[in-house]
């Protein structure tokens, strides 16, 4: 087990930051998701052995946080959420110093500093004072100082915080690479579920200090029995035609979703598209989205209500609109007008099984 937490509670006076959390996670890229103030940072501090738990306990890399704090801190790398870089120092000087502060002898520290800064994508600018760095560069240095001593595990607190969408994607790709190629397991926190589902093997969701979910992303985002179809025109006609052909059809924005029965479903879809003579842009198996874990479970704790609402409300609207459209198609069922088949894109290219 990379991390196991047993009935963990942390109170600051009257405020309960963590409330009886119990979960265990295997090594991998693990996401810890929750709104601001959900207790993510408190959890990390407890895992580092810097903060004592009020009750319960936790183990990190099979070490007890209450008694083996120094050993844990030698073996993990920690990237805090906030700024932590002295403005008057260069990235090289700083990461070198932090490498030595993790116990690396000078020569090894020098070598690994250069390597690590390159891995996180800092090149010439690493000799400049960090005061002039952009947020993206600062986040990279913060990651580098956590990574430089080749830790057995990384604890990353909001590594995508403050980044623009492009920077966010780069950071997530980097994290994925560290987790898979470098083989360093990590716990990543974020308040955005969507970005973690791209990189994590396992997701722990906390809200108001309580555990909502602890699931493997593979379970949640495995391929579903839904086929998504996107055509360049006459979406409604295609929907009616597929319905007439006996498929269960749901409109989804500019796409159409049909239930995948077996391989013949693909043939029916392709035949129908060819008959209608429209261009097929996309034909793929839908993957579940992490957001569905909130909708999927109606027995969620009332504390999770706000999370559920924020994800569920737009979907509720979409679902009723979808139901309406579906009825319309059913009533006007009939074969679509045949037309000349033309191939914008070969249907097979979009086909993913």
């Amino acid at each position, binding site marked *: 087990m990379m991390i196991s937490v047993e009935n963990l509670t942390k109170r600051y006076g009257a405020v309960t930051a963590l409330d009886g959390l119990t979960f265990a996670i295997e090594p991998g890229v693990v996401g810890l998701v929750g709104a601001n103030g959900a207790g993510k*940072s408190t959890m990390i*501090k407890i895992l*580092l052995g*810097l*903060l004592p738990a009020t009750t319960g306990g936790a183990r990190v890399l099979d070490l007890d946080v209450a008694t083996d704090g*120094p*050993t844990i*801190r*030698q073996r*993990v790398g*920690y990237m*805090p959420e*906030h*700024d*932590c*870089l*002295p*403005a*008057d*120092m260069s990235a090289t*000087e700083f990461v070198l*110093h*932090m490498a*030595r*502060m*993790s*116990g*690396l*002898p000078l020569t*090894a520290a020098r070598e*690994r500093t250069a*390597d690590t800064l*390159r*891995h*996180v*994508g800092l*090149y010439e600018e690493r000799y400049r*004072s960090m*005061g002039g760095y952009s947020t993206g560069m600062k986040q990279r240095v913060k990651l580098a*100082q956590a990574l430089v*001593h*080749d830790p057995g595990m990384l604890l990353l607190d909001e590594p995508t915080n403050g980044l623009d969408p*492009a920077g966010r994607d*780069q950071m997530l*790709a*980097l994290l994925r*690479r*560290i987790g898979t*190629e*470098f083989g360093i397991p990590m716990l990543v926190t974020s308040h955005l579920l969507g970005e973690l589902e791209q990189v994590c093997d396992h997701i722990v969701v906390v809200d108001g200090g309580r555990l909502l979910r602890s699931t493997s992303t593979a379970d949640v985002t495995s391929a579903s029995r839904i086929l998504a179809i996107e055509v360049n025109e006459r979406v409604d006609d295609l929907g009616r035609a597929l319905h007439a052909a006996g498929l269960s059809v749901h409109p989804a924005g500019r796409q159409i979703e049909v239930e995948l029965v077996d391989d013949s479903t693909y043939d029916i879809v392709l035949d129908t598209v060819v008959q209608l003579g429209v261009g097929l842009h996309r034909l793929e198996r839908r993957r579940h989205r992490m957001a569905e874990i909130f909708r999927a479970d109606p027995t969620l704790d009332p504390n999770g209500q706000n999370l559920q609402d924020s994800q569920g409300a737009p979907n509720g609207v979409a679902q009723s609109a979808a139901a309406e459209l579906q009825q319309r198609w059913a009533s006007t069922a009939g074969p679509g007008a045949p037309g000349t088949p033309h191939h914008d894109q070969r249907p097979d290219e979009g086909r993913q099984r």
Partner: protein
Amino acid sequence: MSSNGGVIHDIGFRHYDGPRLGRGYLIRSLYVESLRGCYGLGRSAKSKIMPFLLLTVLVAPAVIIAVVAGVTSMKKLPVDYVGYMFALESAIAIFLAAQAPATVSRDLRFRVMPLYLSRPLSRNDYVAAKYGAMSTALFILIAVPQTVLFIGALLAKMSFWPNAKDWAAGLLGALLLSLVLAGIGLLIASITPRRGFGVAAVITVLLLLSLVSGALASLADINGHPDLAGYFALLNPVSLVQGVLHWLVDADVSYPQPPPGTTGGLVFTAAMFVVIAGCYTLLLARYRKVSAS
């Protein structure tokens, strides 16, 4: 990663299975880094100006005296080693005021503390390394000009042993003054994350203590209480060390009255150790409260 230069060949991540050194090494590393930081080494060019300017202010007169002594073939240096240190006490105080915040306030301001505390280093280790670094920086500042004087004296072919003895006394004075001033400076600077406040606070405290103790000592002396006048020097950290050195190596004092007799000497020495130990203890207490986030 997007910023592929195209010429950088990725040889992949290499794992590290070399030694991971323990706390002693961490304290030493932090000590060396902080000591370098006191002189702006490994920092921006701007950070180097102040410490090296002050080092020049302290060393230049010593060089001049040494050269003049050599050229005019003096038999004895015009200043003694301990006296030189106290003659330039204000430059030492400015160095402390400038560099104590650069040593500790900086880590609070830029929130570097969580990075240290998330490593095997303990809070007490941090205090030990910083106290050591600040004291050493001050010691270098004071001892370098004294050593320049000593070398000058030897080059001017003055007699070796008396000079060596006085030089050693000077180094002892440098050590004691460094420990006292470092403690006071770091304690004040550790309260604020703001560099400017730290500088102003250290200067103000040292100036106030010196003014108050000087005024009280003069008043007591004029009103016919020479012993009391001597003891008022306890209030000022610089004259405190001066008093100890007067008792130990018969150094001159700049106050109207020296510490009275052996009792005075013992009281001054005890007070000095109380100040050093007290500052260190208060620093430990201060850093127990510093948040790890």
